[in-house]
């Protein structure tokens, strides 16, 4: 009895020592930069950067530095300004300032319906037979964007996504998810919001939609600082010039422009 305990105990001790030694000797050395960077990243694993998750992104940044390439730091649009600076510090690179972005819906959901749609309640699938909406640029409204948002910033209301600007991080996952490109990323400090993206001429838009932009140009005329130009049958607003005075919003006969205040949850 004693012998057995002795033999098994000795064997255990030998294996234990062997494993401890092997564990130390053969340990995969994790770069501590990866650890530190992933702690600074948001940790939502939203995947909008194109990598598997935050940790995957962190190791991609580090290996890019090690291989002498430019790390794709700006692929992550979610990371806070401060953390971004710290990550740059860890990587030993200089980063300039960036403009925070926010997602914005460029449709007011008032396209006429020319046929009834029955089928999968998924925008990407419905878009294959998308001509049930008179406007081929209009929001389909089944909420692929809301499902794609990792931050719970999108809610569907009356068949149109409503974006909570406080929760939106500007990651762009909804932009990717939308089969029609209805959602755009705009600078967070934009003052005027355009709720249409149809490049069709006015006579087509009038037939297709109750609220679409008809490119009449009244907004451009009303703008005191000449920040609006009509391009591709849509107003293009120069956000640097725009003062947010609201003259264009008043002038628009179709209500496709509205003012944004930074605190406003659109």
């Amino acid at each position, binding site marked *: 009895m004693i012998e057995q305990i002795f033999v098994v105990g000795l064997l255990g001790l030998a294996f234990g020592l062997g494993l401890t030694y092997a564990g130390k000797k053969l340990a995969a050395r994790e770069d501590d930069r990866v650890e530190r960077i992933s702690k600074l990243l948001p940790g939502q694993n939203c995947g909008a950067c194109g990598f598997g998750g935050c940790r995957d992104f962190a190791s991609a940044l580090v290996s890019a530095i090690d291989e002498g390439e430019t790390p794709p730091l700006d692929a992550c649009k979610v990371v806070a300004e401060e953390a971004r600076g710290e990550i740059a510090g860890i990587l030993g690179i200089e980063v300039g300032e960036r403009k925070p972005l926010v997602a914005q819906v460029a449709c007011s959901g008032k396209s006429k319906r020319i046929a009834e749609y029955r089928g999968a309640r998924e925008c990407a*699938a419905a878009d294959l037979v998308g001509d*049930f909406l008179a406007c081929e640029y209009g929001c389909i409204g089944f909420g692929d964007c809301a499902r794609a948002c990792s931050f719970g910033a999108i809610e569907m209301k009356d068949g149109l996504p409503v974006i909570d600007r406080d929760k939106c991080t500007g990651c762009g996952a909804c932009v990717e998810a939308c089969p029609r490109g209805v959602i755009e990323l705009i600078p967070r400090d934009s003052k005027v919001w355009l709720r249409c993206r149809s490049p069709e001429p006015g006579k087509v838009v009038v037939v297709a939609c109750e609220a679409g932009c008809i490119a009449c140009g009244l907004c451009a005329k009303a703008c005191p600082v000449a920040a609006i130009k009509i391009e591709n049958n849509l107003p293009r607003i120069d956000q640097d010039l725009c003062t947010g005075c609201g003259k264009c919003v008043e002038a628009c006969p179709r209500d496709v422009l509205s003012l944004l205040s930074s605190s406003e949850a659109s």
Partner: protein
Amino acid sequence: MLSGFKFRGGIHPDYFKLTAGSRVRRADLPKEVILPLRQHVGAVCESLIEEGERVKVGQKIADSESPVSSPIHATISGTVAEISVRSTPTGERVRSIRIESDGRDRWLKGKGIDPEKSSREEILAKIRENGIVGLGGAAFPTHVKLNPPEGKRVDTVIINGAECEPYITADHRLMVEESRRIVRGAKIIAKVLGAERVIFAVEDNKPDAVERLRKATSGDFEVLALKTKYPQGDERHLIKAVLNREVPPGGLPFDVGVVVQNVGTAKAICDAVCDGIPLVERVVTVTGDVRKPGNLLVRIGTLFSNLIEQCGGPVGAVRKVISGGPMMGIAQSEDVPVIKGTNCILVFSERRVVEEEEMPCIRCGRCVDVCPMGLMPFMIRALVEKGKFDACSEYDIMSCDECGCCAYVCPAKIPLVQIIKRGKMALASAKEVGR
């Protein structure tokens, strides 16, 4: 005579061949036609004419230099009123030429050639020049299909008269009424391809067509009466059912030494080669809830609304207008013109459209049983909905022919085909961007 072979899966829907006994009648000459510049698989054609120009029937009005494309001809004589982007029955928006009729139906007559004495190249040129495409529905340019790539030998031509979709009878009537021209077309096809064997494949629910074809071939070619099953008209399944040869996934019938041509295409080839008549009209079945369903010989470009009117108008409130059959056809949301591939206009009123609610998948496996390609539709659907497109290709999503058997049998009424289609599109575009 039966081949004794069969293809996997498939279904037996109710056939509703309402118009099987009605002779093809010539539709009234339309006042205007709309001719999309792409009515086929391949490149969009460039317009050869200007707005305001006068054209005659059979005049070539659009063509393309791309190897896979087919020219478009004016189908009525008159004036080109407008060239603009319009919807087509396939759900695309394509530049289209609108011609207003002068009511005189003046033709620009081409010349035929004697296929016996002409070379392969001369015949192919004739087929291309006259805008012949596959008339079974897919509208693949015929001169491309009859020109197998280097090194592929074709030993057998199958003339497809299966017409397995419910409601459609356009090919059926053509086989009964134009069997001689179909057989002549088949001879031309066999000559071009250098194939020894020509087989006419018809489903056994069309005994009169089988009989006519047997008479017309007078024993030169085999005429098979295949056991009726949907989707036998799909060329892959037809080859399996007729010859017991299996086209490899991602491959083409060339790979097993076969070319399949629809009966309507065979007739159009005969018209084009022997008489120099371009593809300006075709037989369209107008059926479902219309007062006088029938088979109409229609000028391509005639609007659906015009043809439905000519068949007595709809019975009851229209809920759905489908281009093609009920299994693979496309529901329309606008008034669109007949294009080269349109074989049927199906009108459904209230009583035929059943609203069904989608329920969760219970994994009963019926979709797997009926899939003629041997796929697992329920699994592919789950993967598409999760966005796992890479895994979809492991489940061979690209082999799906969108025949609709899975959605037809699904007890949970899941729109499987639509979801699979979306997965195919997503996968194709992911490949394009090289991800």
